[in-house]
C-alpha cells in the first residue's frame, strides 16, 4: 500500500459513523463506553448511526442469510443516504463481519441485490448499493488514524511489564473473501495471523506473548445452546494463553469477551479447571495506557475482576 493511500485513510477515518450494535448496548456495554472514551481522548470523532437496527447476527443468518444481508444493508443505507457519510466504524466482530458480508454479497450476487432492493422498497427506505460505505473495525480506526507512533507519544501509563495474549476470534478474519483489503502485503491485516491489536498494544508498552490460538473459536454461537462445547473451547483458549505466559487476554469482540468470561466461571464449576488470566477489551487497555481511569473505560462492568490486577500494574 502506498504512502498516499495510508494518508488518505488517516484523513478519512478522523470522523466516522459509529455502529455499536445490540451487544454493545447490553452485555458488551464496557466495550461501548471504552471505545467512545478512547476515541474522544484521541481526538477522533464519531456520529452514531441514526435509528440503527440489529445487523442480523448469526441467528438471523441461520434462519435466512439474505434476511441478515437486508438488515445489515439498512445500517449502511442510513450511513450513506441519510447521514451522507462514507465510513462506518464497528467494534463488534459479529456486526463487522455481517456488514462486510452484506457488502460482498451485494457486489457479487444478483439474487441478493434483488431481495434487498425489494425489502428496502417495502420498508420505505433507500436501497443500499455496494460501494457507498466502507466498513471498518475499531482496530482499523485506531491503527490508521493514530497508529503506533501516535500512541507512543500519548502513553501516560505504559503497559510495560504486562504479558498479553491477543485474541481476535473467528469473525474478524473468516471467511477471507469478504475482507478484500486484508492479506494485501505490508501495512494490511493478515487473515491467518492477524496483528493489528498486537501492534497497538505493543506500542502502548505491552509484551505480547506468542499465542497460537489468536483466531481459534470460543464457541460463541452456542454459548447457551451447547454450553459444554463452548466451555471446552474457551478452556482451551484460556489454558493456552496461560501456558504462553499471558496475564491478560485482550479482546475485540463482545461475544468472545463475554464468552470467555462466562465459561471461565463455568469451567471452574463444571470441569474443576480454574484459570486466572484476565479478560480485558483492547480499548480498555489502550484507554488506561493513555491515562483514562479504569472506571472511564468501564472496567467495573467486566464480569472478570481485574481491578486489583490493573492497580498492581500501575494503571489505576
Amino acid at each position: 500500500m502506498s504512502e498516499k493511500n495510508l494518508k488518505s485513510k488517516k484523513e478519512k477515518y478522523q470522523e466516522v459513523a459509529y455502529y455499536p450494535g445490540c451487544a454493545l448496548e447490553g452485555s458488551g456495554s464496557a466495550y461501548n463506553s471504552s471505545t467512545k472514551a478512547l476515541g474522544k481522548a484521541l481526538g477522533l470523532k464519531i456520529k452514531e448511526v441514526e435509528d440503527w437496527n440489529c445487523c442480523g447476527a448469526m441467528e438471523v443468518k441461520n434462519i435466512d442469510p439474505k434476511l441478515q444481508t437486508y438488515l445489515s444493508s439498512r445500517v449502511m443505507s442510513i450511513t450513506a443516504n441519510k447521514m451522507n457519510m462514507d465510513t462506518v466504524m464497528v467494534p463488534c466482530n459479529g456486526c463487522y463481519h455481517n456488514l462486510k458480508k452484506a457488502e460482498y454479497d451485494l457486489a457479487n450476487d444478483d439474487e441478493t441485490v434483488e431481495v434487498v432492493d425489494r425489502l428496502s422498497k417495502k420498508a420505505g427506505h433507500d436501497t443500499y448499493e455496494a460501494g457507498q460505505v466502507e466498513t471498518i473495525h475499531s482496530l482499523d480506526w485506531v491503527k490508521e488514524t493514530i497508529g503506533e507512533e501516535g500512541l507512543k507519544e500519548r502513553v501516560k501509563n505504559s503497559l510495560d511489564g504486562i504479558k498479553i495474549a491477543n485474541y481476535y476470534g473467528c469473525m474478524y478474519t473468516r471467511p477471507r473473501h469478504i475482507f478484500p483489503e486484508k492479506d494485501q502485503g505490508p501495512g494490511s491485516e493478515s487473515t491467518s495471523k492477524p496483528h493489528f491489536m498486537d501492534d497497538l498494544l505493543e506500542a502502548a508498552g505491552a509484551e505480547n506473548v506468542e499465542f497460537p490460538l489468536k483466531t481459534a473459536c470460543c464457541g460463541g454461537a452456542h454459548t447457551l445452546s451447547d454450553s459444554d462445547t463452548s466451555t471446552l473451547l474457551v478452556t482451551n483458549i484460556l489454558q493456552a494463553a496461560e501456558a504462553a505466559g499471558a496475564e491478560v487476554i485482550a479482546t475485540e469482540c463482545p461475544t468472545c469477551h463475554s464468552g470467555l468470561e462466562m465459561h471461565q466461571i463455568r469451567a471452574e464449576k463444571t470441569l474443576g479447571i480454574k484459570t486466572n488470566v484476565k479478560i480485558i477489551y483492547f480499548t480498555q487497555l489502550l484507554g488506561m495506557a493513555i491515562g483514562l481511569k479504569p472506571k472511564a473505560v468501564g472496567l467495573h462492568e467486566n464480569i472478570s475482576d481485574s481491578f486489583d490486577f490493573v492497580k498492581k500494574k500501575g494503571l489505576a
Partner: protein
Amino acid sequence: MPIHEKSLIRPENLHVQEDIELEGVDVSGHWSTFIESRVVTDYNEALEEEIAELPGGEYIHRCWQCGSCTNACTVNAINGEFNPRYWIYLIRMGMESELLRDKDIIWQCVSCNKCTYACPRDVFPEGVMKATSHWLELKGHTPKSPSMIFDEIFSEQVIKTGKIEDGRTVRRFFQRTGQDLMQPWLVEMVKSMLRNLPIGMLTRLGLANFITPRTSDWSGARDAMNEYIAEREEHHRKALKLDELVQMAETELN
C-alpha cells in the same frame, strides 16, 4: 503395523458365537467372528438437491472430498464423530440412513468458518452444515435443536422490534427449552458481575426487563421481512416435498 480390521467395523455388525463347535473343532469366541455384510437399499436420490435448495447448501456439488474442512474443524477436534467431509459425501451419494446416524450432532457446528477458509472449492461447508441441520428438522428426523430454538427467539425479536436485548433473549431461551434459569454457573456469573457495578448500572439492567429497545419507524421493515420469510418457507415446503410427506403419513395412519 497390521490394521485391526475389527476396530473399523461397527460393533452391531460383528457376530461372535460364545459356544460353538464346527466339525469337531471348538471355534468359540473370536474364532467364530462373522461380519454382517452391508447392503444399501435406501438411496435417496433427491438428497443432494434438497439440501442444495436450503440456504447455505447451494454449493455442495463442488466438493471433491479433499477433507480440508474436517481437518480444520473446531468441533471435530473435540468430537471425532463430527465429520463434515463425510456428511457431504453421504449427502452427495444419497445415503440418507447413514447420514441419520449422526443426526443429533450436526447442529453443533459453531460457525467458526475455518472450513470455509480452508476449502479449495468454495463449497462453504459451514453453510452446508446449517442447511443439513435445517433439513433434518424440516423432515422431522430431529426435533428443533437448542441452537434453532435460540435462533428463532432471537430472530422473532429482531423482526418485531429491530433490535435485540440479550437478557430477554437468554430468559426466553431457558423458558422455551424447559431449563431452569437459575443455573449454578449463571448465578455465580451474575454475582461476580454485581461485585463492581454501581447502583445506576444495576437499575439500568433491572429496567431492561421492562423496556424493550426498539428501532423507530420499523413496521415497514417488519412486514417486508415477515412476507419474505413466508415466501421462503413456502419454497422450502415445495422443494422438500413436505406436503407429500404429510399426506403419506396420513394415509398410513388411516
